[in-house]
């Protein structure tokens, strides 16, 4: 049984700049593959390969509309990535808060010691 896609899988899928471009494009509405090809200026097999990766991790879904297949962004799958980035950001803000506090502490000590003669 194939394992279900994880946040990390989604993360790795968006690591590729072309795939981010595809997601940006699909964020404006669903598109057939030839519209994606035209917008990115890539060959169709490459675009199809990227779309396959994005579908595998659930970031993109596809539906048939007559003869066409329309690709659509599944924004829900992006939320875990946003959350992950947010917690990473929070972690760094706290680290820099501590740096700020520590630098004050160091300079206060320096002041307490008074001028050296």
């Amino acid at each position: 049984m194939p394992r279900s896609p994880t946040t990390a899988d989604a993360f790795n899928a968006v690591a590729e700049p072309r795939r981010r471009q595809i997601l940006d494009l699909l964020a404006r509405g669903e598109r057939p593959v030839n519209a994606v090809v035209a917008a990115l200026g890539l060959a169709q097999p490459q675009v199809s390969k990227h779309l396959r990766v994005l579908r595998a991790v659930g970031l993109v879904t596809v539906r048939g509309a007559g003869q066409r297949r329309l690709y659509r962004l599944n924004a829900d799958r992006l939320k875990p990535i946003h959350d992950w980035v947010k917690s990473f950001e929070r972690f760094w803000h706290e680290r820099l808060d501590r740096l700020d506090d520590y630098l004050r502490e160091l300079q206060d000590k320096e002041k307490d010691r008074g001028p050296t003669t």
Partner: protein
Amino acid sequence: VAPRPEPAAPDRELTLTRVLDAPRDLVWQAWTDPTHLARWWGPRGFTTRVHTWDVRPGGAIALDMVAPDGTAYPMGGTFHEVSVPARLVFTGTAVEDGDGNPQLEVLTTVTLAEQGGKTALTVTLVAVKVGPAAAGALAGMAAGWAQQLDRLAEDLGRVGPVS
């Protein structure tokens, strides 16, 4: 003209800026001297044990951030660029899978600029690699901080108002 849509995919790049009320040389020391670094690197309530912080190109990084409950979060890495006292570039690696392969690699660029006796700090973070084990790890750390805050709140509650 249609409004520019929000980008759908978050970039793996994050830029943080601060103006620190300290001279640049002191900020540089705080980043490059392992004794100083240990005092602020970990989240609040954590202790940091710096094993190696070899600030020169190719120099190694090895430290542990130890949570209040004793869980150690090791970090490794390598320095790439060191320009005293203005720029520091290193890769930090964290979270290993069972085979010791890092699951999170972040390219970190630190720049320090003098700004009228203060120091403008910019930290740029680029996630180079995020493996399956990394996604849960930060969540674990976040839970660690929450516990620490809960404990602090309890302690404060116990002390009660001064009568």
